[in-house]
Every structure is written in structure tokens, then in C-alpha cells.
């Protein structure tokens, strides 16, 4: 009982710290999983969050977002069927209309939706290692160092992949 009294609060404390430091990045985690493996994104994120929670004692400060996204990325890869899955995955176009649109005019709205579909489709067609750096840079606005931390690639590689990704996306959109 004496032992239990000491441990119970520390577990709750760990949970509180995790909820304060990691849970705020849930949307970022889901966005990355959705772009890497559209079909299994929910399972991947749940798996990653639980693994992150169990490993949380090993996380000594630093960038919680980059750390968490590294686990999400590993989970979506270790499922091992990235490419296979992507081949069957529907393009994330069904919800393109969900993106906030300031246009009241239905015609402008339709144009916007079709531009969104085209852009989403082009991003989906990028190979994984290029798609992920682009998502992390342009959507999560992460620094090169954070992207390197998440992807496990050296900074120089992050930089060249990002430049290639931008070039490839531009060509696909031409």
C-alpha cells in the first residue's frame, strides 16, 4: 500500500504530462498518417500514440512534435505495406470540399474544389520520401532540423529531398 501510494500518482502524472505534451500534436500525427497511409491512418495513429505513451519516460524534453511524428512515421512504415496500400488507397479527394472556402459563389467554389483535388492528387503521387518532407515542411511548418529528427535523415538529405519534392510537384501540376 505504501508502494502503491507512491506509484499511482506518478503514473497519473506521467499520463498528465503525456496529455499536455504529446496530445496537442494529435492532428499533426493524423495528418501525416493520412498522407502516408490513407486507409489505415486511424489505426496507425492509435498504435503510435500508445507506443509513444509507453516510451514517454525515454523522451527527455526536446521537440515533442518531431519525436511523436517519428513514431507515427515508423508505425506507418512498419505496417510494411505502404506501397501496396497506396495502390489501393482512394485519393483523399472525397473531403476536398471540407477545406475552408471563402467563396460564396458556387462556381468559384467548384473551381476551388477541383483545384484542391488536382493538388491533393499530385501530392499523393509523389514517392513517400518526397511526400513526407513536403507535408512536414509546408503543412506542419517544421524546420529542417525537426524534419531530420522525424524522418531520421541527415539535414543535407532533407534539403535535397525538399528541393526535389518541390520540383516534382510543380511538374505534376503543369
Amino acid at each position, binding site marked *: 500500500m505504501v508502494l502503491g501510494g507512491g506509484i499511482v500518482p506518478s503514473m497519473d502524472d506521467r499520463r498528465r504530462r503525456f496529455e499536455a505534451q504529446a496530445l496537442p500534436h*494529435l492532428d499533426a500525427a493524423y495528418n501525416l498518417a493520412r498522407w502516408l497511409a490513407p486507409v489505415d491512418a486511424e489505426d496507425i495513429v492509435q498504435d503510435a500514440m500508445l507506443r509513444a505513451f509507453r*516510451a514517454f519516460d525515454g523522451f527527455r524534453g*526536446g521537440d515533442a512534435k518531431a519525436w511523436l511524428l517519428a513514431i507515427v512515421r515508423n508505425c506507418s512504415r512498419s505496417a510494411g505495406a505502404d506501397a501496396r496500400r497506396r495502390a489501393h488507397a482512394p485519393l483523399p479527394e472525397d473531403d476536398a470540399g471540407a477545406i475552408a472556402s471563402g467563396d460564396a459563389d458556387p462556381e468559384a467554389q467548384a473551381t476551388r474544389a477541383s483545384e484542391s483535388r488536382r493538388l491533393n492528387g499530385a501530392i499523393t503521387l509523389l514517392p513517400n520520401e518526397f511526400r513526407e518532407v513536403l507535408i512536414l515542411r509546408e503543412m506542419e511548418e517544421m524546420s529542417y532540423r525537426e524534419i531530420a529528427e522525424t524522418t531520421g535523415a541527415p539535414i543535407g538529405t532533407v534539403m535535397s529531398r*525538399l528541393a526535389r519534392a518541390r520540383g516534382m510537384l510543380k511538374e505534376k*501540376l503543369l
Partner: protein
Amino acid sequence: MTDMSCPEILRTQAWLDGELDEATAAEAERHANACAACRAFVADAAALSDSMRERAARWTAPPHLRTRITAAIANDSRRVRINLRSENFWFGAAGGVGLSALAAAMVFFLLLPVASSTFLESVTDAHTNALMSHHTIEVVSSNHHTVKPWFAGRVEVSPPVADFAAQGFALVGGRVARVAGAPAAVVVYRHGAHEVELFAWADKGRLLPRGGVSHGYRTMFWKEGDLDLAAISDMERGELEKFVQLVRSEKQ
């Protein structure tokens, strides 16, 4: 076809992404302005950034997933409490990530020191100097019909001025300042306890970085018509983005 023929293209990109220290940024900026391949790269990358921000799907976790995860963590918390032992596997895995991150960080510090750039430094300096001297406002008014004409004759540019009080950004006034040596109009807004400033100066064809953080202040840059614009504040990134969206959607 993206022209990546210039050997400096990665440095130009790092400048665009706000990753360079001030001295390197100044050099990179000079080069980018003079090199056709780099100019084109910056224009393309900035356009892509804009369209991704505005039009690409950014997924948010569905509420039921959040609930499921919170429950799973609570459950796991109990389980661990009973076992009094946590699994060691992910300790190891996370350790590996940490180690490669450390290696990456060391390369980073050798390659690229702290993030900043000349426009970024210049706007940040103008903003913080005004804050420190309590001299942020030369014309006090919440009426854009008063603020906009006040700039005429004082500065060569006519900045977009509108009141976004309904959206939480109240117009409080304006002043003039200098950004990278050029006169700039500054429109001052208040958002709760935060001050947000919109800088506008004449677009002289110099390239702009997309944004960055310096001395705790975040700045976002964009071009519109014949103006270079920058919004700066110590607000959360999301709030500053909201403000920029408001300004950009306001047709003058």
C-alpha cells in the same frame, strides 16, 4: 521543368525557408536575386507553398479517434501500474531515434546556424524597437478612414487598412518605419494582450522569405500588387495565420 542547375539552389531554398543565419541569409538573398535559376525556384516554391496552404487537404483527427486514444492511454496507464514494468522495446526504438536526431542536429549546427534573414531581422528590429520605446502608434484611430489617409505624404506606399474587430483583431492605429532601408507603413492591431503589426513597403523586385521566428516574434511575408507585406507578432502561429488570411482576403 524546374531548373535546379544552380549549385547554390539548396542555400537559396534554405533562405526561402528561413533557415539561415543573418550573414549567410544576406549572401543567399543577394545571390538569389541575381541568379535566374534561383529566382525561378523561389517564385515556384513560394507559389506552391501558397497553394498547399490554401488548397491541400490538412486532415484533423476525428473526435472518435481522440476519444479512443485517451481511453487507450488511461487503460494502459492502469495496466502498467499493475505490472510495475513497462516494455523496454520502444525505449530502445526511441533511443535510436534520439541518437540519429542528435547526429542530425550536430550536422545542422555545422551547416546552418540559427534561423533568420535580412528582411526578417529588419522587420523584427523595427517591431521590437517600437515596442521598447512605447512608440508603436503615431496616429491613434480605430477608423480606417482616418488611418489610411494619414499615410499619404508620409510614406510612398498605401497599405491595406481595415478593421477586423469583429474577428478579434482591432485596428488601433499606424506609424511609419524603415524596413531594410526603405520607408514602410505600419498598421497596428490589437488581439487580446498581443500587438500585431502589418508592415507594407514598395516591392522593388527583391525576393521575400516566407516567414520565420526571431527573438520570439513570428513574421510572415507575402507580396500583393506592388507591395511587400509582413505581419509580425508574438501570438501563436495559428493566430498569426488567421490574421494574414483576413488581410489577404480583404479586397481594398
